């Protein structure tokens, strides 16, 4: 049997790529660490749970699932299975439900995005999570959490989650948006029509429920007080809530993956560039077809202009929400936690001097040395420590792709044994 192409991530990009690879005749193994397919956008609800997807979204997803199903046994799907990484010999480790060491023919990394969340006092308190985390729970359970929710940060996701909470009968107490998306009415004009339709749907739902959308307003601090969370806005207003969901943008989840040059490894979808759902699907299709052509020695298909259109749309969205983050960072109190894993504060960062090297940040400061490898602090550390001349950041994240349980490593079936190298 020929080795399968390993596709990591069963979201739009991963499954689109899998369908193309299989259509070209290649066996494909798709793994995802979640219990359900769908990734960030199309996370499938539990049996019997209310679905939050619109008719158009449902159609897109069932079309894709039909394409996958059409490939029959050429595509194998393993859920609750984590990709631990690939080493320089081309050996990949899977842990969880499928637990093996093997050499795939090629690897597609469609790991999606990570959210960017600006550090704030209190952002490590229980009850404070990312807006994406809350959204996945809404999509999975089809029910809103008990109690009052405040949404804060910046970006269109806040409106989407706010509208979804409202649909589930629990509108947020407010949405604090640091940018001023409605202040430059001409900028959105160039956005594609479907972006408008989506935004209008969210906004009308929020307005009907009278959810305050406070723009040019930052959430400056969160405190725990008597079983609730007290959130302070830059306007001076205070919100007493049970949950705070934060979101300041989306970045590719590209950590812990040193290059492997003995087999093709490609990143697709948000994992390559965070451009949103429509782009992820096109990128998955194009990238999957291109990889299949490369593996089978055929000519590569031509690029789909849709990807460029989405890239332009995302750039425009970024302009609409643009606001000054540097000032916010510079005004943080000294005891604000920057690195969540190792509980390192801004003060700890300052003691390293104005322009510490990556090694100093890691070894002396212990920044980005925790289990998340800097996924949530790395960007901010780079901004907080960059002088005009040097931009050290935290250096390259180390392998593996995610923490590997020693027990899983030892129990993995080794399918590389006896193979010639």
């Amino acid at each position: 049997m020929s080795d399968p192409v390993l596709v990591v991530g069963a979201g739009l990009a991963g499954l689109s790529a899998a369908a193309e690879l299989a259509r070209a005749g290649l066996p494909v193994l798709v793994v995802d660490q979640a219990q359900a397919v769908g990734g960030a956008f199309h996370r499938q609800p539990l049996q019997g749970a209310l679905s939050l997807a619109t008719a158009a979204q449902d159609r897109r997803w069932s079309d894709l699932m039909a394409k996958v199903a059409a490939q029959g046994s050429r595509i194998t799907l393993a859920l609750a299975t984590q990709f631990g990484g690939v080493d320089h010999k081309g050996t990949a480790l899977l842990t969880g439900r499928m637990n093996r060491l093997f050499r795939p023919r090629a690897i597609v990394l469609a790991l999606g995005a990570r959210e960017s969340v600006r550090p704030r006092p209190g952002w490590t308190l229980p009850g404070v999570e990312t807006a994406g985390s809350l959204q996945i729970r809404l999509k999975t359970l089809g029910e809103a959490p008990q109690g009052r929710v405040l949404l804060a940060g910046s970006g269109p996701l806040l409106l989407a989650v706010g509208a979804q909470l409202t649909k589930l009968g629990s509108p947020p107490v407010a949405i604090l948006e640091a940018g001023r998306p409605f202040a430059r009415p001409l900028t959105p004009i160039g956005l594609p029509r479907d972006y408008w339709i989506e935004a209008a749907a969210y906004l009308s739902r929020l307005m009907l429920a009278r959810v305050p959308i406070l723009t040019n307003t930052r959430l400056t601090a969160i405190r725990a007080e008597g079983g609730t969370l007290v959130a302070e806005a830059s306007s001076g207003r205070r919100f007493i809530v049970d949950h705070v969901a934060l979101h300041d943008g989306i970045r590719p989840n590209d950590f812990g993956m040193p290059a492997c040059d003995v087999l093709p490894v490609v990143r697709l979808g948000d994992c390559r560039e965070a451009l949103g759902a429509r782009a992820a699907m096109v990128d998955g299709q194009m990238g999957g077809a291109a990889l299949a052509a490369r593996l089978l020695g055929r000519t590569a298909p031509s690029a789909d202009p849709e990807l460029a259109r989405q890239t332009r749309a995302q750039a425009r969205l970024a302009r609409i929400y643009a606001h000054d983050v540097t000032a916010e960072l510079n005004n943080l109190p000294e005891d604000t936690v920057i690195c969540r894993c190792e509980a390192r504060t801004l003060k700890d960062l300052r003691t390293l001097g104005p322009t510490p090297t990556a090694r100093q940040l890691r070894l002396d400061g212990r920044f980005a040395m925790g289990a998340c490898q800097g996924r949530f602090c790395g960007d901010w550390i780079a901004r907080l420590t960059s002088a005009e001349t040097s931009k050290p950041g935290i250096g390259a994240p180390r392998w593996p792709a995610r923490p590997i349980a020693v027990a899983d490593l030892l129990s993995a079936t080794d399918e590389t044994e006896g193979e010639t190298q």
Partner: protein
Amino acid sequence: MSAETHYDVIIAGAGIVGASVAWHLAASGARVAVIDAIGPAAAASGASDGAVSVASKKPGPLARLASASLLYTRELASQGVLAGAFHARPSFVFGQGEAELAALDALVAKLRAISGPVHVTGDGPAAQLACLGPGVERLITLNGEGHMPGHKAVRAYLSAPGITPIWPAPIHGFDIDDRGVTVHLADRRLRTGHLVSALGTATTELFPTLPIMPRAGQLFVTDRGAPGLLPGSLTAAAYLVAKTEAPDVLPLPPVVIDPLTTGQFLIGSSRENHADPNRVDFSTLRRLMERSVRALPLLAERRVIRAFAGIRAAVSDSLPIIGNLPGETRVTLATGFEGDGICLSALVGREIARMVHGLPPTDSIAADLATLSPARFVDARQEAWG
């Protein structure tokens, strides 16, 4: 070009050896600059396990020098110079199977011969330590050794007054004349009376004929747990053998399990001939972990959160290179420490400072130090090609 800045001594390399040399010279009143292409502890010193160990050294001059350096490191720590960097702790060496048990006999004999600060305080079955598992047939407990993370020592040494740090600044070359040395950086030149090169694997960029090559060792870091479960490093006897013989004669992998103060474990290590810090592989990880779990079963509940290869500078005869460049009293080398630089750094710093000042080496170690002179390669080259 504008007037060149002048330093009494320039030290190339801000690893632990360069930092120790800088501290010793600054302490004697010299104006020194430390130059590094990247920054402090950017190479082997920041990627090492920090064992200050005599047990693991090759018998002979290296083991004797390590013993003297351990004593001196403890002295610097008690004076406060290395406070917070060095701490004393027991160390454990274990074996399983004939070859390793024989290596443990050799270890006991070696330590007795040195009669230095390291003592065997226990020798017997694994039961000496409650956390050990079936992979330990015989355990030797040592007292007197310690642990010193390289980056902490570098920071402690370089925080002394009188040391000018210069980085990131790759050194492009140097010229020697009658009155001193000119060091070339990308954008300027620096003048000094004396250049000490402590560049680790990068030594060959300035001294291309020296037989130094990169030797990688894969290291794996676990997540945190309650600290103090293992009171000191746990080293397989195979590791001692690996230092003197070809690794493929070993039946079992040479694991070293080091408990960190964070409650994490650092597990190593392989010996591979390349210089890629990201080159790690699952089969090595699994081999080391299988053995580690049999020796220390609590590791089965941990997760590996980070993996990398530390790159050590290895010399063709497995001995460091310490001393003046033959025929040049203005240029001194201190490199090729492979896996022993943390342990030897204190002593080397002191002795290099003496050389720079034109003083003879400390009496008790003079003979051993002499065997490490770079002259051994010049002679070899003259014999071979001269």
